């Protein structure tokens, strides 16, 4: 009896106590967002009523007239604005390992509409200025600034779209339906609809380009209570933040770096500015700060409301059948599309001879890369080294080694979620450079692709406009651009869980190899050797025991 009591006391009870502690003690604390300190967002309204100003009482005919009126009071702002990229469409930026360049929308290529040059009359629909129709635009004339596109408070201001009608003004003019005086008298600080009027419709339509910036973010209905984006959610219990709350602006310098047109790790708008580097109560989660960008876990999908374009195959545009007729329709598969050996499910496929084949997808899962905040750019003069591989137009730099041994300790590499835009676009087969075609135009014979449907002519026109050589021999090459995702942040309970990445079979980081991720990776040689070792030990003891049993039986 005493023995049993002793065994219970020495062995069983310690087991129970230790197991109870081990299974119940959570040294890591809860996973809640830090509830104690709320981040205050203040939207101040200036106490000025612009409708009372005399200078704004007249009947404005054109946009520049309004700008002149604005600048009569807000003098100095014009000079100020003309230093920024929203005006210039380029800035000086450094590419690591290559030097300093003048980079921007003005001279960089993408795989949407490829390039601005020779297409300015249409592209300047999203220029914060009036009249940027060609390369001779006067960037020094401050009356050409379009103040209203950003500062309109009436939600009635829009710029004219020359493609919508035969005689509509282009080059960023105000739309003829706009009551400029009304708009001028009701200006204010920019709200989401101001920024969104351009940034939600990049690439030629709602959510075409970025994937995480779409018109639905404005709507009270779809953005209600932050289901689509927790910051921009509209409604009573939502945060209802403006773009400028994160993209802090001072004297028209807006924070935030877009890597399709930038290359250095500067002027960033980051999550840590408000949320700090330790936003979780869980230490384990905060430990991930060094390795993973906040966006990775908290942007679980993008294009939540409207599909985004994920593939743009220009090679099917302006094609002719054997009889020489322009192919106007193309048989498209139901809802899957195969590109570069990868099958894309649940997609919408559009075709027209102007644009070629476009593939749209909703609720897209991001792809993941190592990124340290710097990028390279494939410039128009750069040579294509390998035409069998896709050309990445804006390679985002970073690697696992750069994570634990960063070249720049202030910006080590982290895992970021990106949208990868894929497509096929024209290139110069002989010169091995990319080419920039003239796409937009209304006049036949202008060699714009969208009226004349001739690739060779359009490319020639575009390259002549740039003053760059073209051999006359074009082909189509696969390209990619990378778009880091920052918007459509999910609610905290929708964030990625541990097993979404730390998973041997179906990790979100399946394709990001080259480093050891516990739970996903094993060294198969090590594992097999270990298993064989254990099997050998087991076999050894079984054989030994077998012989002991048989030899003792023999004795009897």
């Amino acid at each position: 009896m005493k023995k049993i009591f002793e065994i219970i006391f020495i062995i069983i009870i310690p087991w129970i106590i230790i197991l109870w502690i081990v299974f119940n003690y959570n040294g890591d604390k809860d996973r809640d967002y830090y509830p104690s300190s709320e981040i205050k967002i203040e939207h101040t309204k200036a106490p000025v009523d612009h409708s009372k100003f005399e200078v704004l009482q007249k009947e404005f005919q054109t946009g520049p007239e309004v700008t002149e009126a604005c600048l009569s009071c807000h003098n100095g702002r014009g000079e100020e604005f003309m230093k920024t990229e929203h005006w210039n469409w380029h800035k000086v930026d450094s590419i690591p390992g290559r030097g300093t360049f003048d980079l921007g929308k003005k001279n960089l290529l993408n795989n949407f509409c490829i390039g601005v040059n020779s297409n300015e009359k249409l592209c300047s629909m999203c220029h914060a200025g009036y009249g940027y129709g060609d390369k001779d635009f006067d960037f020094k004339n401050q009356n050409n600034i379009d103040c209203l596109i950003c500062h309109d408070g009436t939600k009635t201001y829009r710029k004219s779209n020359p493609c919508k009608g035969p005689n509509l003004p282009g080059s960023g003019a105000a739309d003829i339906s706009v009551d400029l005086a009304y708009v001028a008298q009701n200006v204010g600080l920019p709200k989401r609809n101001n920024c969104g009027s351009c940034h939600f419709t990049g690439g030629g339509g709602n959510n075409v380009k970025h994937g995480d910036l779409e018109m639905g973010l404005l709507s009270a209905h779809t953005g209600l209570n932050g289901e689509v984006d927790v910051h921009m959610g509209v409604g009573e219990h939502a945060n209802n933040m403006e773009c400028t709350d994160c993209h802090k602006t001072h004297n028209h310098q807006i924070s935030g770096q877009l890597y399709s047109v930038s290359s250095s790790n500067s002027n960033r708008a980051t999550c840590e500015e408000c949320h700090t580097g330790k936003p979780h109560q869980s230490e384990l989660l905060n430990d991930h700060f060094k390795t993973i960008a906040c966006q990775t876990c908290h942007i679980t999908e993008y294009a939540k409301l409207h599909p985004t374009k994920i593939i743009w195959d220009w090679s099917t545009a302006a094609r002719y059948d054997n009889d020489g007729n322009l192919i106007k329709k193309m048989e498209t598969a139901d809802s899957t599309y195969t590109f570069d050996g990868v099958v894309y499910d649940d997609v919408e496929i559009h075709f027209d001879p102007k644009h070629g084949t476009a593939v749209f997808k909703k609720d897209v899962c991001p792809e993941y890369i190592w990124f340290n905040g710097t990028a390279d750019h494939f410039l128009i003069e750069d040579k294509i080294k390998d035409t069998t591989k896709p050309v990445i137009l804006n390679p985002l730099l970073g690697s696992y080694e750069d994570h634990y041994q960063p070249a720049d300790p202030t910006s080590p590499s982290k895992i970021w979620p990106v949208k990868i835009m894929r497509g096929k676009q024209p290139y110069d087969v002989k010169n091995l450079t990319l080419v920039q075609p003239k796409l937009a135009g209304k006049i036949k014979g202008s060699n714009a692709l969208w009226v004349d449907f001739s690739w060779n002519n359009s490319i020639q026109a575009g390259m002549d406009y740039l003053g760059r050589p073209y051999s006359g021999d074009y082909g189509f090459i696969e390209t990619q651009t990378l778009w880091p995702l920052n918007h459509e942040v999910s609610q905290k309970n929708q964030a990625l869980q541990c097993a979404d990445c730390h998973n041997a079979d179906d990790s979100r980081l399946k394709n990001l190899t080259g480093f050891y991720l516990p739970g996903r990776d094993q060294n198969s040689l090590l594992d097999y050797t270990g298993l064989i070792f254990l099997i050998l030990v087991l076999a050894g003891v079984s054989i030994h025991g077998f012989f002991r049993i048989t030899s003792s039986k023999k004795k009897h």
Partner: protein
Amino acid sequence: MKKVLIYKGYERFWHWTQAMLILLLAVTGFEVHGTFDLMGYEQAVLIHRNLAWAFIILIVFTQFWNMTTGEWRQYVPSTNLLKAQIKYYITGIFSNAPHPTRKTVYNKFNPLQRLTYLGLRVLIIPVVVLSGLVYMYYVSLVDQSAVGSLAPVAYFHTIGAFLLMGFVIGHVYLTTTGHKPLSAIKAMITGWEEMSNEDAEIALEENLKVALIESRKGISGHGSIEKEGMFETAFEDVVEKLGINTESTRLREKLLTSNVGYFRIGKDGKYQDVNEVWLNLYKCTDKKEVIGSDVTLDRTPEGKEQIIKLVNKILSGEIITGERVERVCKDGTIGYHTVSAAPVKDKDGNTTGLEGFIIDITPQVEAEKALEKKINAEHKSNVFYEQIAKSKDVGYFRIGDQGFYQEVNETWLKLYKYDSKDDLIGKHYSLSRTKDDFIKLKQSFEKVMNGETIPLGITRRYCKDGSIGYHTITMTPVVENDKIVGVEGFIVDKTDRKMAEEELKKEQI
């Protein structure tokens, strides 16, 4: 089979807690590794961390315990008997060979175990624990540029884990190689290990030895002589206090393994224990038949009376020595033995029974009877003498009228431990006596020379090698031509009996 206390309480707690922690660490660890999915990655990580801390706390404290209790000595590796141990496991164990080493509480591990645990303590556990700690604090170590890629850390940790698992399998199997397959496991639970009587005896000896050495070490003082004086005194005190009579124990053991029959009877007059020799003398085959039966069972009617009287005498506190008793053997034959017995007392001094020794004297009695007959018949018979002379139990001697030995037989020589007759013939009978004994014997000698016979008596002899023996002696005159020319007689060895008497006397003191 005996049980010996090998494992202390803390050890057992430590062993089983560590085993449980290691198994759970393995389960959660391999889930983190991605091998299977039981409780989810997140839970597995949290629990693995908690278990890791519990494990580290346990082993750190246990090293402290090892140091302070001196248990660390158990782990010092030795190559002594290493080959023998390996050979045992590879071949010996299959042919039921004895273990080359024994387990005692001061030496739990055989050399192979010591080597294995050295590997575990120096190689495997540090690898697993240290790589685990680096794994746990990886982020802050990377911040301080103390570590690079995670891969090597993870690989070391995994290698250590596989090695540890291999150890567990081997270890669990090897625990079945004890005295019986479950002996070692039971021992680790209860603390007591089953082992053969011989192993247990050796374990006991080892324990006593180490305990004595340690307590001797625990007294300060220069030189061992000083300590020894103290030590011997302390030792004797303890032995006395514990009631251990070391000399009598050895004596008793010797007696029990000699040709002396041992018995113990309870207060109720029933046999409680007898030994092999007793059974043989009573010609019984089965101890179980005797134990519990009444002491009066195997006697003649007169014998019964005598026995009851004797038993009561002893129970009242007296010691009897050398009482001659008749017995009726199981097969009906009659035998004779002398019995010496003393009461058995418990710790408090109450008599619980009696115990004693019997020495068979049947051949001697028969010889005596024959001799008496002869004495009464006053008739010498050569055949008779020859018979007696050849007897193994009876020693024959003849001494001339001057006191010189004329003849002795083989048995006599054996008893006196002489090699041959030639050493003796012609020598004086005072040779093997003390002065006192000689005077006594001279008196008897002269009496016999005068024609008297003297009754049987016990006398002491000094053997050639200096040892002492006891025997009964008869002396009759040798008559030739109607003249007494010498003394002849028989001696019957009574050494064992005398020894038994002494032993019983001592117990009473």
